[in-house]
């Protein structure tokens, strides 16, 4: 080993002289990385098209993104990602130049400059947080300098200046006990109408002075039947609400200072409707819409207060808000989903009988149903109104329709990736046409000549641009075939919408995408996708099959609801097989290390009753499993109860099992954490596919330590319950962080360590024989990172060289956790500047290359930290031998080297996870970071010692060789001639 180390050091020495820097050059950006920006599923959209300038739409999304999009191309002008706990409630545009957002359950009001997205002001609204927040921005076009914004949140009404965010006045509704439902600003008056419900049965209407907040008038009327849902305004003095049983509509009319209530049964209006009626919140003047179990009904309120059913449409129709066109005219849009097309119709409110506009747009059925629609109008050259519609689809994608065509689409489902796996690409078919080879050879030569010019600084600026273009658009990297180095892969992403995407690692394009129909639409309940697993990886004898992935979902929201399973072809995205719903629930998925004859990975699905279901359900799988079942265990972490339980699988079938593929399990061990002092906050295991090259670690003086390498090890972090809140909620004396390393076969606690005065959140990564975790030290007021390395003491005496040479050792004999090997640990802690969102570690094909920790920082960047910095053997004054080994002197803090940001200039907004995949080239690891944005790159922790860099100039090499050969010949000829002359003399 020492030899190897020294040789590799030697090699490194050479290589470091070859590659002068560790970080990227500016022109290398985009060479092997890509970055994609998304916004997430749009919740609300406000158009801004009045002015002649850039047409844009401001959207707020479920990923808490506020963004301004170009209406022409769908590009992002600017974007802000608010934190995960700063949910955007409302968004609007004020004064024609500010975007107003209300977030954090109505407690933060911000104004952003519309053209560039800079924050203009921010106001914190006091008062208790409430789930309902209302925002009303005066929409009169004449810019009134002191026109206030009205916000209802936390049981009080605030008026805030839209210029600078100053508080103008505040009116508290908590004393009256009124739950405000609507704020109405009639155009042209100085009176704000507030309507609400108190005691769930009394209707209250207030008139409040615009300027001072003084109460002008308060009217109330009681409705004995109670009220349910929101009060919807129909016109200035009419409101409609459902009664408590949702069986009757209450029409409220305010006339001459009196409130008049009138009740109409829904069943009278719509025959045969049951109780599940909802008033849709679309505000259409004089009309409201009801959704019942099987249809949507538009109801017109006549001047006399009569309700007339105008039209019934299908339940799947989506209705937009009303859009004021001109004086007293309003339009709204309906979208109906047909077979691979959607029908968009725009109607005018005063003329419901006919469609003002009807368009049919072809729609890829992989996008599912229409979820939301927002419309906007523009004036055509012939002064008629044209409409554009922004549509949010079931897969969270965003489309703009105009004149019967899809102008642009955005795949914003990719902002909510929940699981990632990869797949190899197909093997390249042999047989290439000569012409193609000639062409590519010519291109190759041309490219290299250009590069050569660039190297020799002879290139003109245009040529420099061409060189950069060639570098970036290397057709090699985006080919759809397997490459020798294993850089080209398919990244298979499962999104929250239940859509699978396959992205090519070369350029990040979507190769295929599929909405898992069986997981989304067949059942009535809400389905959620949970997990993505490799299902079939054709390897030896199943090469004809395509690889496939297994998607596990759940039909319903509770843990016990039935699961749905689906296998999808990784090359084409076709659903191969699906069981939806399966006959059991799934709370855990265990990928077993066994494969059947067609290379399908065996999986155990644990249901809520702790029974194990074997997949694929074939007799062959059962046979394989029964042979190995004695050694198959599983464990569950019950975070709420603070218990770790381990189970074994019973081999024999009992009579009450539903089928042959279901096995009973029995509880073997439990680790109970005392609930009054410890609460589980994090558990981490090793990646199941991690490859470890060696079990020995060579330390200074050629000594050797044996790593305790077990896949059955779990890292558990607990904190005292008081300290489980945010940082600062507990004093240092109250908060204790305890970390455990537990063997999951026997339940044995391998190591336990206490950090006094520390608390979570804990982010950890477990790899080989070490775990690195990140937490907050309350005493030092700093974040810390600790490392624990665990070594097997029972092998430590294997040090006799002669015995090792002749092979008399037990180092390769299979080990059992029940042999209880003696272990020792080493650990060390360091300060770390950043707070952390995710930690991961690089993985390589053979596990020889040294590792880098990949830290997702709070700034949404990915930082690569050499594992050597978190080596528990670091000491203040390392000996010569230790220095030679590469051990760094101990420092109290871990360095953050700006060049080692993997994401360089990019930010992966809303970073949630970092996935690493080994390439075939041992030196290289593929890194994929996802959040709202996606980022992919490949990194070589010990540099690319096994290959030439991609911009290696072969032409220069060839040229040098040719020049040398020519020189040899010339000098040979010259010397011959000279010799001849010598002889003649």
């Amino acid at each position, binding site marked *: 080993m020492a030899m190897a180390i020294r040789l590799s050091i030697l090699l490194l020495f050479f290589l470091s002289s070859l590659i002068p820097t560790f970080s990227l050059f500016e022109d290398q950006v985009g060479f092997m990385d890509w970055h994609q920006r998304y916004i997430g599923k749009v919740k609300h959209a406000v158009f801004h098209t009045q002015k002649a300038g850039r047409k844009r739409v401001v959207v707020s999304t479920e990923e808490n993104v506020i963004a301004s999009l170009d209406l022409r191309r769908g590009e992002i002008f600017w974007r802000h990602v608010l934190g995960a706990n700063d949910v955007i409630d409302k968004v609007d545009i004020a004064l024609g130049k500010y975007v107003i957002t209300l977030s954090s359950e109505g407690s933060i009001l911000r104004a952003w400059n519309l053209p560039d997205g800079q924050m203009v002001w921010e106001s914190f609204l006091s008062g208790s947080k409430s789930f309902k927040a209302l925002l009303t921005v005066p929409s009169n076009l004449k810019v009134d300098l002191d026109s206030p914004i009205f916000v209802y949140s936390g049981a009080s009404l605030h008026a805030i200046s839209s210029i600078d965010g100053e508080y103008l006045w505040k009116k508290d509704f908590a004393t009256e006990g009124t739950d405000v439902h609507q704020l109405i600003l009639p155009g042209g008056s100085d009176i704000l109408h507030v309507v609400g419900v108190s005691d769930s049965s009394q209707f209250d209407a207030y008139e409040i002075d615009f300027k001072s907040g003084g109460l002008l008038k308060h009217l109330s009327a009681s409705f004995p039947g109670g009220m349910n849902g929101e009060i919807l305004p129909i016109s200035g003095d009419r409101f409609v609400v459902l009664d408590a049983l949702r069986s009757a509509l209450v029409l409220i009319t305010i006339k001459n200072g009196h409130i008049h209530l009138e009740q109409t049964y829904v069943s009278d209006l719509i025959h045969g409707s049951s109780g599940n009626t909802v008033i849709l919140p679309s505000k259409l003047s004089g009309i409201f819409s009801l959704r019942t179990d099987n249809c949507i009904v538009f109801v017109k309120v006549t001047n006399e207060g009569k309700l007339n059913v105008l039209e019934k449409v299908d339940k799947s129709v989506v209705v937009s808000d009303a859009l004021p066109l001109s004086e007293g005219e309003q339009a709204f849009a309906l979208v109906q989903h047909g077979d691979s097309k959607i029908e968009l119709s725009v109607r005018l409110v005063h003329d419901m009988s006919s469609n003002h506009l009807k368009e049919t747009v072809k729609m890829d059925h992989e996008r599912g149903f229409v979820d939301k629609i927002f419309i906007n109008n523009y004036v055509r050259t012939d002064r008629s109104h044209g409409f554009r519609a922004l549509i949010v689809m079931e897969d969270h994608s965003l489309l703009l329709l105009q004149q019967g065509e899809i102008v642009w689409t955005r795949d914003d489902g990719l902002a909510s990736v929940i699981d990632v796996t990869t797949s190899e690409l197909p093997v390249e078919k042999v047989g290439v046409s000569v012409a193609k080879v000639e062409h590519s050879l010519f291109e190759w030569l041309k490219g290299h000549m250009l590069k050569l010019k660039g190297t020799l600084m002879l290139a003109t600026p245009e040529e420099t641009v061409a060189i950069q273009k060639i570098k970036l658009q290397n057709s090699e990297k985006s080919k759809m075939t397997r490459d020798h180095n294993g850089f080209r892969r398919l990244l298979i992403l499962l999104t929250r919408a239940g859509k699978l995407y396959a992205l090519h690692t070369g350029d990040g394009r979507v190769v295929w995408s599929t909405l898992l129909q069986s997981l989304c639409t067949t059942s009535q309940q809400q389905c959620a996708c949970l997990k993505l697993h490799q299902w079939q990886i054709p390897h030896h004898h199943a090469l004809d099959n395509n690889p496939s992935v297994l998607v596990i979902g759940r039909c319903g929201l509770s843990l016990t609801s039935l699961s749905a399973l689906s296998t999808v072809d990784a090359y084409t995205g076709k659903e191969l097989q699906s069981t939806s719903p399966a006959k059991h629930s799934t709370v855990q998925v265990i990928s077993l290390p066994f494969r059947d004859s067609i290379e399908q990975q065996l999986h155990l699905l644990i249901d809520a009753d702790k029974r194990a279901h074997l997949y694929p359900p074939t007799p062959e799988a059962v046979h394989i499993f029964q042979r190995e079942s004695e050694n*198959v*265990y599983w464990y569950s972490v019950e975070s709420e109860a603070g218990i770790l339980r381990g189970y074994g699988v019973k081999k024999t079938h009992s009579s009450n099992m539903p089928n042959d593929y279901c096995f009973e399990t029995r509880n073997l061990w439990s680790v109970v954490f005392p609930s009054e002092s410890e609460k589980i906050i994090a558990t981490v295991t090793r990646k199941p596919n991690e490859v470890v090259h060696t079990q020995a670690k*060579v330390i200074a003086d050629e*000594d050797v330590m044996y790593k305790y390498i077990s896949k059955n090890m779990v890292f558990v972090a607990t904190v005292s319950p008081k300290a489980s809140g945010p940082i600062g909620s507990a004093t240092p004396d109250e908060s204790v962080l305890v970390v455990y390393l537990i063997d999951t076969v026997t339940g044995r606690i391998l190591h336990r360590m206490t950090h006094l005065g520390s608390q979570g959140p804990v982010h950890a990564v477990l790899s080989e024989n070490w775990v690195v975790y990140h937490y907050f030290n309350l005493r030092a007021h700093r974040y810390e990172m600790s490392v624990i390395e665990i070594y097997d003491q029972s092998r430590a005496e294997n040090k006799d060289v002669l015995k090792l040479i002749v092979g008399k050792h037990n180092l390769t004999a299979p080990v059992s956790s029940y042999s209880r090997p003696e272990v020792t640990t080493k650990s060390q802690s360091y300060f770390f500047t950043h707070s952390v969102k995710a930690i991961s570690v690089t993985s390589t094909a053979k596990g020889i290359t040294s590792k880098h920790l990949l830290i997702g920082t709070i700034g949404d960047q990915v930082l690569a930290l050499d594992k050597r910095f978190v080596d528990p053997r670091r000491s203040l004054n390392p000996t010569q031998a230790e220095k030679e080994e590469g051990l760094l002197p101990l420092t109290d803090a871990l360095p953050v080297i700006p060049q080692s940001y993997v994401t360089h200039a990019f930010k992966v907004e809303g970073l949630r996870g970092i996935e690493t995949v080994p390439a075939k080239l041992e030196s290289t690891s593929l890194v994929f970071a996802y959040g709202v944005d996606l980022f992919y790159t490949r990194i070589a922790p010990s540099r690319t010692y096994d290959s030439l860099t991609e911009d290696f100039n072969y032409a220069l090499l060839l040229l040098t060789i040719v020049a040398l050969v020519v020189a040899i010949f010339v000098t040979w000829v010259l010397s011959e001639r000279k010799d001849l002359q010598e002889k003649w003399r």
Partner: protein
Amino acid sequence: MEKGKGVMGSRKWAVDFTDNSSTASTRDIPDPPGFTRASLDQDDSSLSRQKKDAESNWKSQKAWEVAQAPFKNLLMMGFMMWMAGNTVHLFSIGITFSALWQPLSALQGVGKVFEPYKDNKVDLLAPKLLYIALNLGGMLLGVWKLNTLGLLPTHASDWVSSLPPAHEVEFSGGGVALN
């Protein structure tokens, strides 16, 4: 070695002053006046023996010299090794390998080196043995240097570093329930 070469290789011509063969062909020229061949012929045998002794003496002396030559080499090599230090880099590796290679090639050519001094009367065994011993010493020095550089697999670490992790009998999976 160098000297041996000097003796053997660079001899292009020679005048044998002791040549006094009495064949007629070489005696075309009459003897100078006053020269009597008889007196010379008389002590011819004793002279040649004397001469042979001198030659064999000289040869054995030379052989000893040649045998001792690697000692200087050894000293120089030791000095170079000391200069090279104990870290692995190009210089130290080059010196170590040359220290290993030189004795090896010298040992291969033992016979050749001592060929010029081959004589029935000269006993070459002792110088040869010394020569071999010194070269072996040089080689040992090289090996020792190799070891100090850590390039010899003499430690347990050199034999276990490529051992894969032991196979685990049990398999366990699971974790927090999906939600």
